[in-house]
């Protein structure tokens, strides 16, 4: 199984390390041609405006939509969550528009409001260490979206079929359980495609 990490900008090496720690083969993806050989893709944290701009420039919008259409799972963390969303508060347009949710950027405020906390996540036994950095929030979700965790009553982790998204940065800790969860999703999708 081979999982890509979109490497246009952001915390790429950390995701690769976490994916390898749970037994997956992981590669940095800079060109759309690389998507073909992959079973899943992580869209990492970074600056969503920068990542979105570069995705458009290099044809990733259509290529990732096709990747998703083929039943291959996507996992967006922080900026990656914003990139997956159908709607972004205060903006007319969104990016990939694959996941039925409305997100708010920088929802906690500026960097001084960034924090870490222990966060319970549905499907994972003990709370995970979640690092929120200028993090977005999921303000509302459609019917087919499963809410996996909330912080102070606001949604911070969600799944819609083969799409997984979280507001925080699991790649910044040694806690790789959310990556393991995603690798399971990729395995299931592989079995379905076979």
């Amino acid at each position: 199984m081979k999982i890509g990490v979109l490497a246009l900008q952001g915390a790429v090496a950390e995701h690769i390390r976490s994916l390898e720690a749970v037994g997956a083969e992981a590669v940095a993806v800079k060109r759309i041609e690389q998507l073909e050989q992959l079973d899943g893709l992580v869209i990492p944290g970074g600056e969503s405006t920068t990542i979105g701009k570069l995705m458009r420039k290099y044809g990733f919008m259509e290529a990732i939509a096709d990747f998703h259409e083929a039943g291959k799972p996507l996992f967006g963390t922080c900026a990656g969550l914003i990139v997956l969303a159908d709607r972004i508060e205060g903006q007319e347009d969104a990016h990939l528009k694959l996941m039925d949710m409305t997100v708010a950027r920088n929802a906690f405020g500026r960097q001084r409001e960034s924090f870490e906390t222990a966060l319970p996540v549905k499907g994972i036994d003990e709370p995970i260490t979640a690092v929120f950095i200028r993090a977005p929030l999921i303000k509302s979700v459609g019917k087919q979206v499963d809410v996996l965790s909330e912080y102070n009553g606001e949604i911070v982790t969600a799944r819609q079929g083969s799409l997984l998204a979280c507001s925080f940065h699991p790649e910044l800790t040694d806690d790789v359980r959310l990556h393991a969860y995603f690798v399971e999703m990729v395995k299931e999708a592989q079995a379905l495609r076979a």
Partner: protein
Amino acid sequence: METGTFRVKSGMAEMQKGGVIMDVMNAEQAKIAEAAGATAVMALERVPSDIRAAGGVARMADPTIVEEVMKVVSIPVMAKARIGHIVEARVLESMGVDYIDESEVLTPADEVFHISKHEFTVPFVCGAKDLGEALRRIQEGAAMLRTKGEPGTGNIVEAVRHLRLINGQIRKVQNLSKDELYNEAKLLGVPYDLLLGVHETGKLPVVNFAAGGVATPADAALMMELGADGVFVGSGIFKSDSPEKFARAIVEATTHYQDYKLIAEVSKNLGTPMKGIEISKLHAAERMQDRGI
């Protein structure tokens, strides 16, 4: 829930990786930078080349400029405080600036002590030209590093020198035995524990960007090739003929730093880059990199 932890501060810098942080002097430039794909902007009263030209004492920017920039962009906003100027840093923190650059580009307020950065909730970036400076700044609480280079010169040679030196020193430290490490810590003037970390991991514990002299897309790509995590561009963009094109080209060259055809493509018809200064023509007192060691 805990704010201001080292992981939250250094993690913010991790999110900037592969990106370009641009110096801006007003809201209009900040919007150009954001639209071009900058991952953050540095709000300043004057870019380094103007600071050189103006002479005199360079201080923290007028808070009005910083606020104006914070209002118009959604990407992080950084601002510079003088080395050792605790109050300038506290003022910037109180305004909600996302990152403070304790910077040798401004005239140092303290020729001996840097700010103790652990006590702040806002993270700091500092310049370093060798491994000793890098680890001393981390010891003081810096959550991100950058090369010093020679700011405002449009000449990449000093940033190259600093990055090569730091990476060469890291490789040397990796190969030292335990007893040699104790002595190396003494020679570098750094805490043993931080040096041991470098010995074990083969890298710095925080992100290290290139800064000081980046003037073209190829300069930015060169620094990435040499192992920088990302790039600061100061005077290079808004001192060029066509800032918008320059900014976009530098962003693309940083992402695709090994795609030489692409760098050739984005480098076409950019107009004149900033003029630049030959380093040997600078007097000792004009060398910003010698401040705050």
